[in-house]
């Protein structure tokens, strides 16, 4: 019998409709309620669970009491297995963290959660990538790539995964922006880490694509191309992401998945460097190149999750020395929207906008639009 873990963040999304950019923090939640926000998360969770009804007798749903899962599971026609305790009407991020730890100990095959970036961050903080998860999008902020495109698809994907029809998983970014700053007009997005989600060939046609390489293989091909063209006199600033990580892996170097590393002659000069450290390292170097990959589900090239590579660094390196790496699948997921930049410096934003070559495979490039 398969076990599906479920966590509902009952208040996710409440801040959005009333213009509050998010629902992080007790005061904001109170304010959202005063402004008339209604919980939407349970209803969207129900939409996802409906897709799982045909599997009712082949799986158990394990969840937390009350609004954190029990209510919506019963309402959707299932008989949940309950663990944990909550103070009804007063749950917060600590409950989410405790719930996913409990579900991991219980042993679930998939952890389905309803929430937004904040919920994803809580899950990552509590259990990192030890359990395969999938997000039902119900939050305000959606920079992370751990969510299905809509609740129905979340349910369908869960069903396919529980039936072993999808066997592969992929690493997807967990990102969050600091809501406080946004309310003050500053957007800072941080890349927190990666969660494992079921790997869906959403943008590659399934029937004929049975033998197409999966994302890991495409990333290896990209890394091989970049490594073959690495000039030994050149210093490489390597941004965060699974595609850029593959380059370091192939070079046999330690890496920081979330940080910015510096490489020359296929050796590490530094890892997880700050903007200041990067500037210090490159100040006397003649040849410097930046290798980056778009971060998150929205296609930001600079300014989200890799702010260490600042406007000043980009200006010093120059557009012609920026190597963008991304799989065809990733580029296709942007559905024709341009790659985005938000370096905080208009002149650098302008310099980068236009068209840029993206290394998309071995001896394979895409020319793609960049905008700010």
């Amino acid at each position: 019998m398969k076990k599906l873990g479920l966590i509902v963040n009952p208040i996710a999304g409440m801040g959005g409709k009333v213009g509050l950019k998010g629902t992080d923090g007790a005061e904001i939640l109170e304010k959202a309620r005063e402004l008339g926000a209604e919980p939407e998360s349970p209803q969207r969770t129900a939409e996802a669970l409906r897709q799982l009804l045909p599997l009712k007798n082949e799986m158990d749903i394990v969840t937390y009491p009350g609004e954190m899962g029990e209510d919506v599971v019963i309402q959707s026609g299932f008989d949940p297995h309950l663990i944990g305790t909550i103070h009804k009407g007063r749950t917060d991020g600590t409950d989410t963290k405790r719930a996913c730890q409990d579900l991991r100990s219980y042993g679930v095959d998939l952890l389905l959660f309803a929430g937004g970036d904040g919920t994803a961050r809580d899950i990552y903080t509590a259990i990192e990538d030890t359990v395969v998860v999938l997000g039902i999008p119900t939050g305000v902020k959606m920079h992370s790539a751990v969510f299905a495109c809509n609740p129905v698809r979340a349910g369908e994907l869960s069903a396919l995964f529980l039936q072993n029809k999808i066997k592969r998983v992929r690493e997807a970014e967990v990102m969050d922006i600091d809501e406080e700053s946004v309310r003050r007009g500053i957007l800072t997005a941080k890349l927190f880490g990666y969660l494992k989600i079921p790997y869906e060939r959403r943008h590659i046609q399934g029937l004929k694509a049975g033998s197409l390489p999966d994302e890991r293989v495409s990333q290896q091909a990209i890394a091989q191309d970049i490594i073959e063209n690495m000039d030994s006199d050149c210093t490489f600033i390597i941004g965060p992401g699974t595609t850029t990580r593959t380059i370091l892996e192939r070079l046999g170097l330690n890496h920081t998945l979330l940080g910015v590393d510096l490489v020359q002659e296929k050796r590490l000069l530094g890892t997880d460097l700050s903007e200041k450290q990067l500037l210090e390292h490159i100040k006397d170097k003649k040849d410097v190149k930046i290798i980056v990959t778009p971060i998150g589900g929205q296609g930001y090239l600079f300014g989200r999750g890799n702010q260490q590579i600042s406007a000043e660094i980009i200006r010093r390196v120059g557009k012609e020395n920026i190597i963008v790496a991304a799989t065809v699948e990733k580029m296709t997921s942007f559905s024709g929207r341009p790659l985005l930049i938000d370096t905080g410096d208009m002149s650098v934003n302008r310099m980068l906008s236009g068209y840029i070559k993206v290394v998309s495979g071995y001896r394979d490039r895409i020319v793609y639009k960049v905008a700010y």
Partner: protein
Amino acid sequence: MTEKDKKKYRLRKNFHQAKWDEPIIFELHNPGERGILVPEVESEVVEAVGDGISALPENMVRKQGPALPEVSQMRVLKHYLRLSQHCLGADFNIDIGQGTCTMKYSPKIHKMLAGSPKVTEIHPWQDDDTVQGALEIMYKLETFLREISGMSRFSLQPSSGSAAIFIMASMVHAFHTFHGEAEKRDEIITTIFSHPSDAAAAAVKGYKIITLYPDEDGLVSVDALKEAMSDRTAALFITNPEDTGIFNPHIAEFTRIVHEAGGLCGYDQANANGILGITRAKEAGFDLCFFNLHKTFSAPHGCGGPASGALGVTEDLIDFLPAPIVDYDGEKYYLNDDIPHTIGKTRGFYGVFPVILKAYAWITSLGGQGLKEAAQVAVLNNNYLLENIKKIRGAASPFSAGKHRIEQVRYTWEQLTQDTGVTTEDVTCRMADFGFHLWSSHHPFVVPQPFTIEPTESYSKDELDEYLEGLRKVVEEAYDDPERVKNAPYNSVVHKIDHSTLDDPEKWAITWRAYLKKHGKSKRD
């Protein structure tokens, strides 16, 4: 509405495909059963030529006979006729959902011509003098294609569109080798909505590939091309109109920019259905182009028949063409191998003659004006569908809003999917319940939940209306009862297939032997 204007079509609500539950041919094996009994060879023959086996090298003689199924003639006939009824073939259904490669109608008399003993009983090793008629047809077809494209010479040797692209890449390489630049010029540029083989076949030749993506208006901009250009550019291989049905109006500027940078331009006209007699490769500035005779010029393709990618070049590239080409010396037609810098032979013999013959017959039966009218009707049909599909809830035609398209449109069900969870694949399956084929294979999904409809000139307004009615019906169901659509098909041969094994190397099997091995079955148990 007058009586005359009333619907002349109806949706086939009681359609059901034949379902024979037929075993696969290997399962029909019955030891000793035979289709024909081959007579013993007469002793005089054996005395003259030996037994036929001992002449072979020992290591080439099989120790055991091949494990072919042993089945009688009549059973084989039934087997394949039953399987043929499992197909929604182009001669059965309104097959316009196969956009980019919808088959137009190929008149059956052309098939009869190709099946005539005058065609089937000739052999490519016969002396030129004895096949003057066949050579004349090839030569004359070439003159037609020159007129249609503006190119100077054609090779009919490529046996598919992708083969033609590979030969274009080979000729580009030969051209740059001749000018001492082949090593430096190692990149070929194409676009994401061009024929995917433009990238694939050029990569097989060893070129690096740069793919241009369109802007929000669906067109690749001149600036995007400029970003890709360098002294490493060997060529641009492009389709126009692209798979979206949008004609790039900057094409002459594209070819000018590539030429200025020292590159060549290859026009992928695999599907030239909307532009015959309207616009030509030469005037757009191309150096090479090819037509799929098995698409634009009616000869059936894919599972419906073999292929031919007729490849044309300008004066500057004639010396690099694959050899031989058919020439005429004023008295007789002959195969000319004397091409100074030829890239050589690219396949056995000369070309796929039955396809060449069908294309020749199609062109001569229509005439010049007829070809142009075929293109015009194809475009008219397409825009009739566009106007009607745009009105279907949940469907949209991304890019180029409010403008007409050429021969096809890549639509999206994105809204339908968001509203109902019903995807392109679900719609495809449900359409089969009404006897329609709708193809969904347009990877990568740059257009989300894509479907491409291409009517060609062959289908009548009634048939287009019937197809539209099918789409409307399925969408109506998707909004009322999405599960009905998601569980389709109901009236087809096979209902739901578990695709997951296609992703599982332990399970997939492309041969009977692999199937037996991977699924733990012994031979013929």
